[in-house]
C-alpha cells in the first residue's frame, strides 16, 4: 500500500453498548474514488465520523500518510488534510455563500485575500458565482449540497469524505454532480470516499466499493465484482432475492 493513503484499521465503535462498527478496515489511496455502501444503519456515516474524530473508537486506529491521527479532535484532523460533508447539510446559514467557502481556506491558514480568490474560483467551478452574496440558509437544497462540497475543497484536502452528496437532488443535478466529482480526484490529487444510496451514481463513479452491513464489512473490491457478490445482494435485497 502506498504510504500516502488514508487508512482506518480494525475500527470498532460502540453506542451505549451497541456495536455500531465491528472491526472494519478501509483504505483510500490518493486519486482514487471509493464507494462506501450498505443498507440504512449499517454504519457508513459512523465510519466517516470515526475517521474524522467525531466519535470515539473502542478499538482500531486511523492513519494518514503513515501518521497516526486516531482520536485527535476533529479540527486537528481537518487541518491534517481530511475534509468532509455531512449527511444532512451543515452550512453556516447566516454567512454568505462565499464566506461559507472561505471559512475552510481561512482555517487552514490562508490570508483573507488568498481565501477570497480560492473561493471565487470554486464558486465558478460549481456554477454558484451568482449566489456568492446570498446567505447560506437561503439556498435551495441542491445548491446547499454544492456549497458544502466547495467548502470542503477550499481546504485543499488530500482526502475528501462525502456523506450522501446526491441526496435530495434531482436527476439532472445528480448527473452534473457526477460529472464534477469524477474529475476532482485527478485534478486535485485527492482520494475520495463517497457514501450514497444511488447505486447508478456509485457504480459509474467509483473505482472500488466497500460494503457494510450491521457494522461489518461484507464485501470489498472492484465495482463489477461487488455487483455480483451474493452477500451484497442478500444484504440489499433480502435472502429471497439472493436464492431466486
Amino acid at each position: 500500500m502506498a504510504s500516502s493513503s488514508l487508512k482506518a484499521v480494525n475500527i470498532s465503535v460502540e453506542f451505549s453498548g451497541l456495536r455500531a462498527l465491528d472491526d472494519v478496515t478501509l483504505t483510500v489511496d490518493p486519486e482514487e474514488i471509493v464507494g462506501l455502501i450498505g443498507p440504512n444503519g449499517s454504519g457508513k456515516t459512523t465510519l466517516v465520523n470515526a475517521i474524522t474524530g467525531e466519535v470515539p473508537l473502542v478499538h482500531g486506529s486511523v492513519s494518514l500518510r503513515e501518521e497516526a491521527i486516531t482520536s485527535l479532535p476533529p479540527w486537528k484532523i481537518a487541518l491534517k488534510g481530511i475534509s468532509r460533508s455531512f449527511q444532512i447539510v451543515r452550512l453556516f446559514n447566516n454567512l454568505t455563500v462565499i464566506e461559507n467557502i472561505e471559512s475552510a481556506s481561512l482555517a487552514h491558514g490562508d490570508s483573507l485575500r488568498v481565501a477570497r480568490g480560492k473561493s471565487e474560483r470554486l464558486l465558478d467551478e460549481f456554477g454558484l458565482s451568482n449566489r456568492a452574496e446570498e446567505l447560506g440558509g437561503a439556498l435551495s437544497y441542491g445548491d446547499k449540497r454544492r456549497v458544502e462540497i466547495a467548502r470542503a475543497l477550499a481546504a485543499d484536502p488530500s482526502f475528501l469524505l462525502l456523506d450522501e452528496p446526491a441526496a435530495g437532488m434531482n436527476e439532472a443535478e445528480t448527473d452534473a454532480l457526477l460529472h464534477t466529482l469524477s474529475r476532482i480526484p485527478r485534478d486535485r490529487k485527492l482520494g475520495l470516499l463517497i457514501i450514497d444510496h444511488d447505486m447508478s451514481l456509485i457504480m459509474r463513479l467509483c473505482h472500488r466499493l466497500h460494503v457494510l452491513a450491521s457494522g461489518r464489512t461484507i464485501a470489498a473490491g472492484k465495482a463489477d465484482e461487488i455487483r455480483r457478490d451474493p452477500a451484497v445482494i442478500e444484504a440489499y435485497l433480502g435472502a429471497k432475492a439472493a436464492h431466486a
Partner: protein
Amino acid sequence: MKRNLLTFFILGGLILLAVVASQVVGIRLYDRVATNLCISLTLVLGLQVFMGNSGILSFAHIGFMGIGAYASALLTIPTMMKGMALPDLYPFLKDVQLSPYIAIAVSGLVAALVAAIVSYPLMRLSDAAAVITSFALLVVLHTVMTHWSALTNGPRTLFGVPKATDVKLAALVALLALVTALAFKESRTGKLLRASRDDERAAAAVGARIPQLRWRAFILAALFTGIGGALWGHFITSFSPRAFYLKETFLILSMLVIGGANTVTGAVIGTFIVTAAYESLRGIEGLLNEAKVSSQPVIGLTEIVLALAMMAILVLRPGGLFPTREIGALLARRFGRPEKSG
C-alpha cells in the same frame, strides 16, 4: 470591503450627528445623554464582538466594565485624596497618579488581562452551560469588587475619581470601538467564529479551533468593556460596585438584543433606540411623579417597558432589528449593482 466602509460611514455618521446635535442645542442634559450614549456604544460594541460573533450570550461583561472603572480610578485619584477615599490601599499604589487618558487605556488592558486568565477554561463550553458560567463569572467579579476593600472601598461609594470624560473623548472611543468591531467581524478569527456560531460541528470539520477563537473575541470584548467602564468612571466620578451588576447588565444586553446581536449595525442602532427610550421614559416617570397622578410615586416604569420591549423583539423578531446583514450590505443590495468581492 466597500460595503464595510459604507456601514462604517453610516454608523459613524450617526454617532457624530448625535454628538454634534447635542452640542448645538446647548442644553446640559443633552450633553450628558450624548456622553452616556457614546459610553454605552463602547460597552455594547464590546459585547457584540464576543456575543455577536460567537453566538454565546455573556453576562460577565459588566464585570469587566467594573474592573476598568476601578483600575482607572486607582491609577488617577490624586495621592492626597487616596488617603481618604481608600484608607487601606496598598502602599505601592498610593503614589501612582497617571493622566486619565493613559489610565483609561491601561484599564482596558487590565480588564483584557483578567479576561484572558479567567475565561480560558470556559471557552470550550457552549449553549446553556456557557451562559450560566458567564453569569457565575459576573457574580464572582461582583463579589470581589464588593469585598476587596483595599482597592474598591468595599460596597461603599468610591469618591474622588477625576472628571476626564467629555462627549468628545467618549465619541472618539465609540468610533474606535465601531471600527474595531467591524474589522474583527471581517478578520480571519471573526469569520471562523461566526462560522462556529452557525454550526459548531461543521466549523470544527473545516478546521476551526473554536475555544481559541472564542477566547480571542472574549479578550477583545473585555478590552473595550474595560475602556468603557473607565470612561464611565471618569464621567460619573463616584461609584460603588452596585453600578456593575444586574441592572447595567440588563440594560446593555437589551440594547444589543433589540438591535440584533449578530451585526455591528444592530449593536449601534439598538444602543440609540434604548438610550432614547430610556431617557424619555425617565422623563415621563419624572413628569408623572411631579403631577402626582397617583398617590404612590411611579417607580420602575423605565425598566418594565424596556423588559417588555425586549420580550416583544425576541418573540416577533428573534434576531433583533438587524439580524444578519450590516446596513452597508443591505443598502448595496437594494440600490447598488451586485458587488462581486465583498
